């Protein structure tokens, strides 16, 4: 009888310890370091594009949003821009928007960059790093895939091939 009790006791203590370890490892390594986790609602924001039009994320409800954080000096960002530009008109028709958030560079530089690559999709500038903070973006480029309900489906850091981008755009079609 006592033996039974002890087994229950030991099992309980071991389970509690195991739970603590699993929780610690999980929160440290399997959740995103970004403030925005996969599966959570993407924080709303409002930023102006190069023409002065304001873009509010919540206005895109019902559409998929390919949210790309970038800088003009960042070579990997530069490499994926033409692919994004190519795919933009195709997927816009299918209800997926591309929105590129520049990390607070001078408007002149962003404008020249957009002109150089003939970028069609809206580019907004996060002058005060507010959106950058809200999304806790570290390395560039970082892309958030947001579905029609405003939920973050995937977070991609690092450069993407054209196939990658196409696959990602496909995944958030409404």
């Amino acid at each position, binding site marked *: 009888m*006592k*033996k039974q009790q*002890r*087994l229950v006791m*030991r*099992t309980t*203590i*071991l389970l509690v*310890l195991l739970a*603590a*370890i699993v*929780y*610690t*490892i999980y*929160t*440290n*390594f399997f959740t995103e370091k970004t403030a925005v986790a996969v599966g959570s609602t993407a*924080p*709303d*924001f*409002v*930023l102006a594009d190069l023409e002065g039009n304001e873009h*509010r994320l919540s206005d895109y409800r019902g559409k998929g949003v390919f949210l790309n954080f970038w*800088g*003009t*000096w960042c*070579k990997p960002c530069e490499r994926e821009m033409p692919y994004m530009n190519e795919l933009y008109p195709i997927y816009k028709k299918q209800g997926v928007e591309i929105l590129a958030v520049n*990390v*607070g*560079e*001078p*408007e*002149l*530089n962003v*404008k*020249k960059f957009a002109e150089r690559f003939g970028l069609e999709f809206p580019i*907004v500038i*996060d002058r*005060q*790093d*507010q*959106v950058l*903070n*809200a999304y806790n973006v570290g390395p560039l480029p970082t892309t958030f895939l947001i579905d029609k309900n405003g939920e973050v489906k995937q977070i991609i850091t690092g450069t993407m091939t054209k196939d990658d981008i196409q696959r990602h755009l496909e995944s958030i079609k409404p």
Partner: protein
Amino acid sequence: MEQVKCECGHVNPHGTAFCESCGKPLVDLGERPLLDMRYEGSARRSQTYKKTIIDQIWAFFSSVKVGVALIVITLVASAIGTIFPQQMYIPPNVDPAEYYKQQYGWAGKLYYELGFNNLYGSWWYILLIALIGVSLVICSLDRVIPLYRALKRQGVKRHPHFLERQRLFGVSHVSDLDKTMAVLKERLAARRYHVREEGGHLLAEKGRFSRWGPYVNHIGLIIFLIGAMLRSVPGMYTDRVMWIPEGETKEIPGTNGRYFLKSEKFIFETYEKGKDNEVFNAAIDRVGNGMIAKNYQTNVVLYKRVGPVIPGAKPKLEKVKEYPIRVNEPLKFDHYALYQVDFRLNEPKAMSFQLADKQSGKTFGTVTVDLYDPKESYNLGHGYRVELLSYFPDFEFDEDGNPSTKSRVPNNPAFVFKMYAPDRPKGEVSFVAIRQTIEPFGDNKYKMAFAGLQTRNVSGLTVRRDFTLWILGLGGVIFMIGLIQGMYWNHRRIWVQRINGELWIAAHTNKNWFGLKNELRRLLDGTGVAMPTDRLEEEKQAGQGGQAHGTA
């Protein structure tokens, strides 16, 4: 379940080395003269049952050998982590794989490939720490419960076999046993012993609580580990860096957009001869005038955002307070603390140029370019105009030899200007960098002459919010209490028994045998009772080499 009944009638759990009550050895000790008193000879359960998987896991973690192995592995790993800098301390804009290889050769490459560059945050390092925690809990439980039981149940009357197997043991003939016992009892009580008497036998004990010291210490460690674990719970711990230039208002990272900070001024002061107290003169002479830092300070204004938080939208701000942040004097608000940790002096903010005729030196007006938000076109009147074609805040030539920028910070600004004049309606292109001008399309008539640089200072602040600090503090305090409890008190016991008309004395302590012997000497002085002999030392002197005695 097997149990062992001693001849004194006490029933002991299986695996007990000597009876909990009377101390009679229950296992055959052979020729070994001394009892191992560690854990009072109690049965460590994990050692006796190894049936189910749970019991086996329990047994594994309850082993001190396993615990020590885990600690040694962690120590070695921690030491390796200090050979080369951790990744967080290498320049942020380099590829770590390249950096380690370049700086430290093949050793650096190996270091990076084995993941030592992020050692203290790696899953296996955290797992090791967690396993030490598990080992602590189970080791403690497995020992403290039987030990508590054994000490609680110990009888006053002990079996002669127990007494004669103690390290300090002596037999005396005294004329009046009753009187001697009474004197000893009185003296023991005077020395703050807790004396129990049973059938004419004495057990004097003091400092038993010292035995709990290591376990209190472990509880402190476990609380400390729980505190460290809670740091990964969202909202419990924030540690962010914020760079803020003079004159700017920025969101404070980690506050979810609720607080903003404006930097009014960054102040860097040094000790100067003549201005400061004379006592500093010698030090100033040694290091150099204006070389010793006296103060790093950022004068800030704290704002709270009112209304809904929508990142990117122009915030409505309400002033909370003004504060000079100095080293070790953080700005504290809403459990946040902003610390002065770093600075950059004289960071370029704007650059001025004069449009000038290269030959005559005549100038036609000044262009001031804001390095954070340059305009595209600058009209100087009378037909003179300058256009900014390209701007590189942190200029370099990229891999293909094209001018490009390394970052968005104007560390090394460079510009491509197009200058229009009445006599040059098509314009002339000039590439202007610091101490460098290139005219890509041949000789120009006009040039952009450098006319001044506006700079400002930038403060580096750390934003910290830590709700785990008090838990870590509590763990630390309990750790110290346990340490003191176990270190500065000794658990001493003295048994005095009358056996066959003789007076038997045995004594045991968990540490400081020297002190116990002194105490015994004083106790027995003038009573006619012989001082017990230290049998461990006797053995040593006899050159047989004694078995080390337990001191837990």
